[in-house]
């Protein structure tokens, strides 16, 4: 996906794959994750990890993650982050 393009619903598979790959590489070297793996409650991503994820989502998908977005429901899984990216895209 080209980084400058607005993320559409039809991009879901691509975006989900890229988020999964980032988490797999950066946080879950010894665990295999899927789109619904509980990332926070299983301790795969901690608070510094959330900040790194925010930077990744903002840089890669050109979205602006707000302070009020930094809640469990938006980062609990790849699917949750995917929804956040779609919702924030075009803001």
């Amino acid at each position, binding site marked *: 996906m080209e980084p400058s393009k607005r993320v559409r619903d039809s991009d879901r598979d691509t975006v989900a794959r890229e988020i999964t790959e980032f988490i797999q590489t950066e946080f879950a070297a*010894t665990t295999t994750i899927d789109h619904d793996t509980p990332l*926070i*409650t*299983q*301790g795969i991503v*901690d*608070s510094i990890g*959330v*900040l790194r994820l925010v930077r990744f989502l903002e840089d890669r998908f050109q979205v602006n993650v707000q*302070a*009020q977005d*930094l*809640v*469990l429901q938006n*980062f609990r899984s790849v699917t949750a982050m995917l929804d956040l990216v779609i919702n924030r895209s075009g803001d």
Partner: protein
Amino acid sequence: MERERQENQVRLISLAEGFLYANVLFALHRLGVFRLLDSGPKTLPELAAVMGCDEHRLMRALRGGLVTRLLEVDHENRYQVSGVVKDTLGPAADPSLDAWMWFLYSVQPAICQLDKTVLSGQPIFHFFSQLNQAEIRQFSLAMHNYAKSRGADLPNFLDLSGYKTLLDVGTGPGTYAFELAAKYRQLEISLLDLPSVLEVAKEIEAHYSLENQPHYLPLDFGREEIPGKYDVVLVSNTLHTIGPASSRALLKRLYSNVNSAGCLVVQAQFIPDHQPATRCWPVVFDLILMSITPTGENHGLNETIEWLKEAGFLNVASCRMSLLNTNSYVIGYR
């Protein structure tokens, strides 16, 4: 199998060596190296001359700063602070982070003897009772720093629209009450803590422009009656200092301080109720409390909910705030 064994070795060694890196940070901070580099890069002889210490020993300490990425060297081999230090301890950063560093440094001798505390049941020293006024200020500023940074989103998650009065029990620097009053301009806040602590809260208040003048109640809530009735009673990061038995007794007493249809809010860094404990700080914070207080103990979310119900509060619910905030809160209504 061999790869897994190697990874486990690295994990264990990293844990065991962690205190060394923290001490490099403490030492460079206490030596004033970061402050000296605020004005720009300096050579080793320049730093040693200002500090009045041996160049070789200083070079070894600075090398510790390089490997921990607290310091960098420029192309002229001059030392400068890294982005981490610049953003957190530099002149433009919140100065009360200095105080937080002081707190962690101060409790370090106790936590280093955790094994003794576990066996004896006694803290290594009584941190709070031995503080002088300057140290109380330092500690309160440390709490202020926490409340202003990771804890600052309480007003975004706790809706106090329609409430008129708030009592903050064990207010410390008063930051949470001030932040709430800054957002909910109708709130009239009362801050309760020991007289020496309230002096610092008054200092912090100067940074806020509040609609209503705060009231200060210089009291020991453990020994003295708590006066008045309020729409909201806030108990923020206080119960862990007094332990479970005193917490339950305090919450029962506070029930009578809450107006009908009012609420009581306990904000804390709750220990996770389920294993594995993935939020590390509340757990290690509990170990600090065991090492430096006679009865202090961090508490879990579910037990706090039960304490509120036991005290008579209704519709008790909890809220986890931002993922960067180790605080959550429990709210119950009268």
